[in-house]
């Protein structure tokens, strides 16, 4: 691989006709995966060890798999002309698949586009669209979350009934209240105190 010099890598899609017999129209796809440093590492609080070494680059749904060099460059060898799909698998990042056209007529020309948002790429540098956070973040303790919990709602409801209802009754018109009390008495609704064992002693 004398052809793999940094200069050619920068051209990113050096498609020199391969020197092997029988596969005259085989090309190489060279590109680079760039994960912005510092993105998330400190802020989100979980760093996966050996991140770069666990990144895989897959061509056409796993037909070819390659890995990244320390500087993030990768290459696929002996690829026939046509339209291909490159996917990047990296835990913690979401990469869009990339459509790459390898043309037999115009060797060396880059035709790449992200399939997620149809954005064209002038050079085959793949960057994650976003980070992926696999875990829910535990909310810090707050009174609101306690109140929102089923138990909190229950307590709140009870308190509301216990303290707000009498207030409502107080604000009622005296006549109306008497009428309501009459009604209640006629229906025989027991008061709270008579319900409890101690209430019977009255």
């Amino acid at each position: 691989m004398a052809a793999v010099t940094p200069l050619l890598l920068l051209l990113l899609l050096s498609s020199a006709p391969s020197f092997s017999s029988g596969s005259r129209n085989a090309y190489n796809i060279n590109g680079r995966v760039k994960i912005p440093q510092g993105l998330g590492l400190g802020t989100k609080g979980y760093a996966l060890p050996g991140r770069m070494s666990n990144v895989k680059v897959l061509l056409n749904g796993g037909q070819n798999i390659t890995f990244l060099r320390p500087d993030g460059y990768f290459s696929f060898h002996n690829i026939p002309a046509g339209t291909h799909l490159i996917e990047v698998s990296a835990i913690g990042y979401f990469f869009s698949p990339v459509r790459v056209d390898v043309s037999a007529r115009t060797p060396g020309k880059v035709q790449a586009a992200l399939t997620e948002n149809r954005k064209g790429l002038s050079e085959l540098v793949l960057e994650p669209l976003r980070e992926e956070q696999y875990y829910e973040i535990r909310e810090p303790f707050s009174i609101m979350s306690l109140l929102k919990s089923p138990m909190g709602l229950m307590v709140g409801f009870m308190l509301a009934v216990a303290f707000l209802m009498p207030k409502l009754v107080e604000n009622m018109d005296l006549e109306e209240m008497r009428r309501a009390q009459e009604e209640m008495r006629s229906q025989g609704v027991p008061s709270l105190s008579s319900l409890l064992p101690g209430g019977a002693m009255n």
Partner: protein
Amino acid sequence: MAIRSFFLFILFFSSSLSPVFSLYEDQVGLMDWHQQYIGKVKQAVFSSQRAGRKRVVVSTEENVIASLDLRHGEIFWRHLLGADDVIDGIDIGLGKYVITLSSGGSILRSWNLPDGQMVWESSLQGPKHSKSFLLVPTNLKFDKDNVLVVFSNGRLHAISCIDGEVLWKKDFEAESFEVQQVIQPPGSDLIYVVGFAASYQFEMYQINAKNGELLKHESASFSSGFSGEVSLVSTETVVALDSTGSILLTISFQDGKISSQQTPISNLVEDSLGPAVIIPSSVSGIFAIKTDAVTVFIRVIGEGKLEVVEKTTHEIAVSDALSISEDQQAFALIQHASSEIHLTVKLAHDWDGNLLKESVKMDRQRGLVHKVFINNYIRTDRSYGFRVLIVMEDHSLLLLQQGEIVWSREDGLASIIDVTTSELPVERNGVSVAKVEHNLFEWLKGHMLKLKGTLMLASPEDMAAIQSMRLKSSEKSKMTRDHNGFRKLLIVLTRAGKLFALHTGDGRIVWSHLLRSLHKSEACQSPIGLNLYQWQVPHHHAMDENPSVLVVSRCGPSSDTPGVLSFVDTYTGKELSSLSLDHAVVQVIPLPYTDSTEQRLHLLINADKHAHLYPKTSEALSIFKREFLNIYWYSVEDQNGIIKGHALKCKCTGEVADEFCFDTRDLWSVVFPSESEKIVATVTRKLNEVVHTQAKVVADQDVMYKYISRNLLFVATVAPKGSGEIGSVTPEESWLVAYLIDTVTGRILHRVTHHGSQGPVHAVFSENWVVYHYFNLRAHRYEMSVIEIYDQSRADNIDVWKLVLGKHNLTSPISLFSRPEVITKSQSYFFTHSLKAIAVTSTAKGITSKQLLLGTIGDQVLALDKRFLDPRRTVNPTQAEKEEGIIPLTDSLPIIPQSYVTHALRVEGLRGIITVPAKLESTTLVFAHGVDLFFTQLAPSRTYDSLTEDFSYALLLITIVALVAAIFVTWRLSERKELQEKWR
């Protein structure tokens, strides 16, 4: 009760808003487990670094390259190469780079030994296909740069170890030249390439290692020809066998001159042995030949003279040579003796003197030793110690040192063929139950700690205590059945022919059994395990019987070789019985009938389309006769593009009059035109799937009836041109056709064409819908489509008057022979990733909503709510539809990172996803396997029927206490107020 329903309401309310599957980071490992494997080791290289941790680098048959800790067998790092990227050779260069040659010698990679980062990658081409060799000479230098010598594809390369650049290359283009060995004698600048030409000519090339210049080319012809491999006995001598396998040829090419000697094997070994093969080894001066029964070790003394040193009938395994000093080479030899293995380490030039002789007890379930790798270390008294790494028949990897097994790895689990589940024994009085909560105080203390955790008052030590308490919970790994059905046994069949039972609680191996029926034997040359079936699942009757599984295997790779059945008890792992069949097994159909001992009836179809009934009992036969006319099945011939329907005809007529053999007849066939369609996927519903209701209430109180039939088959075909890889066709010449076929009548219920699409197609069928994943060439994106099928004949039943007057057809029998009135609805969406597997959750009663489990190309499992794949989605759903839970239509399916079932883990080399319902309706068990194993519990609609694991009982107690206190206070107040009222 009211509180409970209130509670449910709250849960339902909260579940409709956030992603359904989500996990906090501290919940990892509570309900899931993850195991990492590498597969059967092909080659191992020990790192000879003096400092740092001792490690061994291995390549495996699963195309994994891994660095293992030599002390404990743990994985430091690991890479799984592509499926076609088979590893041909590995070695360590400069003490810090792992060099791998793969893909038939066309890709050379270098990895950093400490962390597994790839350093460089080179593509090597050549004029023709050939064997490939990777040599890492230690003393060959080229401008201070170590040189790798690679022979691949008929070309010899010298490659720089630092950056992978090709220094020189030399072609061997002679048409018939077949390379056999590439030799680089240490201490010289020469490379020898030896091989055969035209099968009777021996060729030797001597090449200058500095520049690739051809120094000498000699050839000699041998009229008797060659067969098999050659063994290198010294740097300038090889031993080969003639074409009859009875004469040994010792060929030496010292100083570029070829001289040879022929020795008939019968001269060395008295009794004739039949044709022999050479076992390749790299031990200098010694080689081994093997016939059917005997292994013979032969030493080469001087001028091509041969001498037998040992003859053994035991199974034997030999390691490669290990140089321990300037001129001494050692190698390891392992012999089997009943339940032990004998390890001997010998010096190459001194057969009778043993450096080491040890016996190690070996579990019989591991089978024979397949490979041995030897490594030495220096003891404290400065003598040599040896450790050996052995690969067993069941693909496990063990390290032996000082007569003991230091560690072992069950790497057979990296190649699972089939999975089934079994219940655990019921908890009886006699069965001891692990003490879960010791006493009330401990229990309360635990919950107080938890409460502290929820209130964020806990100190770091408390947090650690909570975490370990949660992970340790002995409840989940008990060996008895639990109320919720979370604890089960996963029975897995591996490629090595071994059955494992894994506990779902913590993933430990409960038992393992190397199937005797899958052992190589006279009758069965290369047995292959095929499938697992649940043979006996006792639940109503026969409760005292243990459940058992049926393992179906066959004797060779082609489908017409005879089959073997074995029956294994799932509680003990004992092989109850095994049957060598006299017929092949092409298809196994588990029938929905069981006999009085709850053995399931199975129909085995052989290559001549005869059906054989198992178990062969008269009871099974009488049950079977009753249902004789109701049994239909189909077969798919994907080469010819034909799908056929079959039924039973009569008893077998012909040579064997067997009561349990039946003739079959073809009912229908669907022939796809071979010039335009090729079958790529066929999917049916799972046999044991439960559907809760046929009715589906849609907006405006309308009802739709799902068309639910067990006999629906989904078939996907693509244009023959488009069956290759992505990028090989243009959208115009590629299409994908999806069919829904009734397998009893062969009627095509639905057909849809996706123009400009191609495979691979992954599909899953459940209830009345099918979801499939394929590639859209026009958009150049993956797409997922859903087809739902509804029964129209029942659509008028919604009229209440008809129900009252009894004019409905709900009770009328359904026959598949009557023309079904069905309508289908379908919709397509974009999906980002390639898929490796697809599955759907299944629950005990089928009430819980479904989730699709997508095994993505990144080896993760994503849970996607079925509601996203609902053909009734519209861009602007009406208010009624919104209430029903219809999500506004978007062009692509969302990927929510929190809904990755595997969270931050990878199931490396994912191959399959299996879902099993738990007894608890809300929960389903998910097992994903590949090179790694992953297991978890999923609740697609949240656990609405039980409290979650992190439910705080302490908080509940406090609330109750507070409520009681409040009651007493209000009672007091109320009493006082009443008193005042009375005084007034």
